[in-house]
């Protein structure tokens, strides 16, 4: 059997389990835990192989000097998924040998399906590991990433029914389930969306285009998310996203805004919290307005999704670590976000005008698509405009308290870059600031401090927030 056949058998069995989800019988628990561990192990090995094994050099002219794999081309969710998979508890102490489980004919139907899922997932992984036929085709590697992400999401759903049994056996599992499993499901879903987009993207087989145009940038700190937004803005001006990609983009942005509300925390930055709350709702509205729209494009939004996920990853990491984040950073992010929506809107508007996007024909008895006439109002475009607006109705710029927050963040950014330049000249590490009175930098610092005193009260204790989940 081929890889695809094994994966289809395993996915079919998982679908049955998700549909007929029941807590396992006590006698079945060791075998079920064994199968679950086999599914996770095989997913982890397969994902590692897909990320490291695809020889992207073979399709990237001009990169003869060194090998590139998918890991070098993407960031965000597939890498984060691989990282999170390593932390999933396997419950080894309560499982038995996989070969014993596979060798016996299990009595119950549910147990039989678990065994079917584990057997074919393991065989699918072995097929990937032992075959090199797909390695010169990054598109195939993306398919493997998508398959793994689906398996992981299904396992997380099944975990909800194992929880009562597993939590009583293993305290670590209960802790993981409470704090991390939600994040794993979100990341798996995003990885699946990204992988399906990249798989369909013709650019995957012609990666050279990435070398001349703006590529997604990897962000190393939360303070760099504005750089991510600016990169996403440029990326959004090229490559028309499919409707599915646009919906995924909107849902991700809604998730990011919801996480930002958590980061703002209780008792600080009310105007900023209102702004994120507004954006969270508007992006959900945008996702909803895609349900009666179709695109004739196969999908060119993979890079946009990748960059959005990179921004989301930084925010996810901050929420998971329960960090206290400067409101100035979040205000700066909030200030720049509408520009990204404007870039997306311009692209989609052109697509409607060119007939690449269609809407449901409400005048027809039979459901069918139609092209959009010049100047016609479309709910999707209205939603995209709404995303750019503010709670107070202004469409550009900022007003009142939010303006001061943004000004504070700008000063902080100016201060930081000046400090980095000074540090470079003086040969000291950035962040180690000599005491200088009476200079322009000190004036900016004073302004920032007075603004922060007025608008950004520091909590006396670090905020404790739940991790991002869903």
């Amino acid at each position, binding site marked *: 059997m081929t890889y695809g056949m094994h994966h289809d058998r395993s*996915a*079919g069995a*998982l*679908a*049955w389990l*998700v*549909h007929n*989800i029941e807590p396992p019988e006590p006698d079945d628990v060791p075998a079920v835990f064994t199968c679950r561990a086999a599914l996770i192990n095989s997913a982890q090995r397969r994902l590692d192989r897909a990320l490291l094994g695809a020889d992207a050099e073979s399709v990237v002219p001009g990169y003869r000097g060194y090998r590139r794999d998918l890991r070098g081309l993407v960031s965000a969710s597939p890498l984060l998924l691989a990282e999170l998979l390593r932390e999933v508890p396997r419950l080894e102490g309560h499982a038995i040998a996989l070969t014993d489980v596979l060798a016996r004919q299990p009595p119950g139907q549910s147990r039989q399906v678990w065994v079917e899922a584990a057997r074919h997932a393991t065989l699918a992984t072995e097929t990937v590991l032992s075959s090199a036929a797909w390695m010169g085709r990054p598109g195939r590697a993306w398919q493997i990433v998508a398959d793994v992400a*689906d398996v992981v*999401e*299904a396992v997380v*759903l099944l975990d909800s029914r194992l929880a009562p049994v597993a939590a009583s056996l293993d305290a670590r599992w209960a802790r993981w389930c409470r704090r991390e499993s939600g994040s794993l499901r979100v990341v798996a*879903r995003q990885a699946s969306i990204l992988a399906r987009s990249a798989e*369909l993207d013709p650019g995957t087989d012609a990666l050279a285009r990435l070398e001349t145009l703006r590529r997604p940038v990897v962000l190393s700190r939360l303070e760099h998310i504005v750089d991510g937004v600016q990169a996403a803005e440029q990326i959004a001006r090229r490559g028309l996203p499919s409707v*599915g990609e646009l*919906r*995924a983009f909107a*849902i991700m942005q*809604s*998730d990011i805004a*919801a996480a930002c509300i958590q980061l703002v925390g209780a008792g600080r930055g009310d105007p900023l919290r209102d702004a994120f709350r507004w954006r*969270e*709702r508007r992006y*959900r*509205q945008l*996702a*909803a*307005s895609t*349900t*009666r729209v*179709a695109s*004739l494009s196969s999908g060119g939004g993979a890079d946009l999704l990748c960059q959005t996920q990179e921004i989301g990853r930084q925010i996810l990491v901050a929420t998971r670590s329960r960090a206290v984040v400067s409101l100035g950073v979040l205000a700066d992010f909030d200030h720049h976000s509408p520009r990204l929506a404007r870039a997306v809107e311009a692209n989609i508007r052109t697509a409607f005008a060119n007939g690449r996007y*269609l809407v*449901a*024909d*409400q005048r027809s008895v*039979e*459901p*069918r*698509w*139609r*092209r959009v006439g010049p100047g016609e109002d479309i709910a999707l475009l209205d939603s995209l405009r709404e995303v750019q607006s503010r709670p107070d109705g202004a469409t550009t710029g900022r007003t009142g308290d939010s303006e001061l927050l943004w000004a504070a963040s700008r000063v902080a950014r100016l201060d930081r870059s000046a400090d980095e330049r000074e540090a470079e000249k003086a040969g000291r590490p950035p962040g180690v600031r000599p005491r200088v009175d009476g200079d322009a930098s000190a004036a900016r610092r004073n302004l920032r401090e007075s603004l922060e005193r007025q608008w950004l009260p520091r909590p006396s204790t670090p905020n404790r927030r739940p991790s991002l989940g*869903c």
Partner: protein
Amino acid sequence: MDLTSFTVPTPEVQRARSVLAELCEIGVELMERERHIDVLLAFDRLAPSAGIAWVPPEPSVGLSNVDEALAAARTALEAVLNDPTRHQIAPLDAAMAAWHVDQAQGRR
């Protein structure tokens, strides 16, 4: 692909898509965030297999009761899952759509 290359999904899938599409649209006002996201993700899962494009969902009928609409979507998905071979949709996607609908039902 042109305007004539869209196919009609099976009645069960179309019923589930239509109800979920309308729930997506009214959900911002009528549902809590988590519940609405579940509905959006359920709709998102009901995409056809590669190479097939479907006609739009049925026009809105003016749903007023979210719980009843979710139950109708669940019933339609149940029928899909009882015979997943004829619906041009991956069984795992249909199962996850049903799971999201269950979650949305449980969040009332």
